[in-house]
């Protein structure tokens, strides 16, 4: 047992030293973006407040943007497609958020609530 523990500690030690010694490795960025994405997914699925749902959607989008930027930076350093893509995505996300908030405001005016529940049945049919 002692040997296995020793090996795990060794691997983790290597990981941390490589983190601290050189430039930030790509895995760190990807880990952050994955956490962001699933936080977004979780929020999207579980929140009842429409604003929070919207925030979660933004979180997922931003995680994707982060991936674009990181891959562009690390894999194809001489090119700019990833950055441009990200800029477009941010722009579109901003417009989409504006529309979403407009809708939410309108819903609020009608039903005095922005919670996703039985109150909002008027949009059925």
């Amino acid at each position, binding site marked *: 047992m002692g040997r296995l523990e020793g090996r795990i500690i060794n691997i983790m030690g290597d990981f941390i030293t490589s983190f601290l010694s050189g430039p930030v490795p790509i895995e760190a960025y990807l880990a952050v973006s994955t956490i962001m994405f699933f936080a977004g*997914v979780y929020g*999207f*699925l579980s929140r009842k407040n429409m604003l929070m749902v919207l925030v979660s959607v933004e979180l997922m989008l931003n995680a994707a943007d982060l991936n674009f930027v990181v891959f562009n930076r690390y894999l194809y350093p001489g090119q700019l497609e990833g950055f441009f893509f990200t800029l477009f995505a941010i722009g579109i996300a901003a417009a989409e958020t504006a529309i979403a908030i407009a809708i939410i405001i309108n819903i609020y005016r009608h039903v005095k609530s922005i919670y*996703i529940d039985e109150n909002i049945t008027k949009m059925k049919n």
Partner: protein
Amino acid sequence: MDAFNYSILILVLPVVMFLILGLGGKYMKPVIAGTLGSLSLAVMAVLAYTTAYQYFFEVGKGADGVYQAINVFHFQWLRFTDTLHIDLGMYLDPISVMMLVVITTVSLMVHVYSLGYMKGEKGFQRYYAFLSLFSFAMLGLVVATNIFQMYIFWELVGVSSFLLISFYYVKPSAVAASKKAFIVTRFADFFFLVGILLLSYFTGTFDFATLTASNADICVSSTAGMSFLGMSVLSWAMLLIFMGGAGKSAMMPFHIWLPDAMEGPTPASALIHAATMVVAGVFLVARLFPIYHFGAPEILTVIAWVGAITALFAAVVACTQTDIKRVLAFSTISQIAFMLTSLGVSKFGDHEGLGYMAGMFHLFTHAFFKALLFLCAGAIIHAVHSNEMGDMGGLAKKLPITCITFGIAWLAIAGIYPFSGFFSKDEILAAAMEHNFPIYIILSVAAGLTAFYMTRLFLRIFFYEKKHYHHEPHEAGPSMAIPLIILAVFAFGAGFVPFSKFVTSDGVPYDAHINMQVAVTSVLISLVGIGIGFRLYFKKNDIPDKIASSISTFYKWAHNKFYFDELWLYVTRNIIFKRISATIAWFDKKFVDGFMDSLAYVTQAASSTIKNFQSGYIQQYALAYLLGALILVVGFGGWLIAFICK
């Protein structure tokens, strides 16, 4: 044949008149509608007489002196294959020409008579429209070129009969009677249809001319060697066809509708349920006679026996009825049975075919005297406002014209020389004696009974006792009296027509002689019947009641028409409805419906389960999507790992 081009008008006029009166009758005065209908009938009658004259004296006889059948008018109507097609047309041969004359004459008389009888009735125009429809249907039936055309018109006749019986449709009894008539005849027509299909399946044709050509060769050869339940297929077909005829002609056991059909207006009864429609069955058998004779002689024997038994049965029942129209109805059944028996005992050709000739002859004379009897009954009912004998008596002085014309019809139906019924009935009895002696005995008894019950009817109405009436009965107007007188002339004189010169089984004219032995016997039997009738009913006395009570059981049975209606009701209600139909209904409800219901139930259950998936909550959908994606990723990842590790 160009010479007969005009005769198609005999069919076209009534149907046009039906449309005019049926659609436009509401906007006409009743008198105009009635006159219009009667005029068209008069034109048709003239055309029919011209046709008859031309056929019998100028064109009809071929070079060899045999009356041939002429297709005046013929076109293909529905064509299914080369051999299977339904045609329409006009087929003139001695019996159809004879029927044209009979139908148009009686129908004309009834039209004119109805002008007076139906005056002031609600639906007068409708009545004339239906009469026209009936005339069209009946004429179409007799001139049919093929058995399917005949069937079409056969059903049309049934419909118009239904419409006329239920003319007083606010009367529940009339409605019930019309339904009964329609259902019973329709039931019998079902057998007719099966018979037609059977016959045409084997012969491959509907055409009468082809079917009966050269001694019904095609029928015999095409069905040769086929049998079913010990009877040849041809016999089955002909038996089924006869059953259809028995339904229309009110033979036992299908006779139950005819007495009830008397709920209709009396002139319509005279036309339909006495003179013309009810002889359709006789006409049918006569039309197919060569097939019966050469292909299915045993069915002819069946027909003869059914006829003989019905003749006797109806005559017995007629003796006990008190409603005068019902007496006449049973008398009609009995007389039609005479005709069928006559056809049944007949052989083919010349003197051997005497029965055929006699049956047709009796049809001819019977149409006139029975129409006359019914129209007289109408006049009497018109005068005393009742159908019951008990409300009548001593009418001879008050209704002299009716009394005399009724008397002529009475002597005609009783078969007294020289009235028309004598000649035709004598031929029938002669034919029966020659070929089937037991039937001759039965018919003689029935003839005696006929004389007796007609005497009873006549005396009970016109003599018996002096009655005091609320309204003094008086003779109806000329529109009712004139048809009576004209028909009386026919009823008297129709017997002198040398019928065997025109209508014979094989088309060859010959001279028929009165068989003196038969004639004397039948007249004697009739005289005995009349004598007994006079003894019992000339003056009011208590002998009839005594006789009735001395044979009370039998009298009760006869009075209740031997419980045939009850028997049918029992069979339909307790056996067919309760046992067979109820079982089938149970099976239908439990199994057929149950299967369908369970299908629906499963679908419903499935859909109500599935519908929860579609909640409308976008987050649930997203979750499902996420889970699906995860499963794919995990599955694909696992597969990839397994692939790499291999």
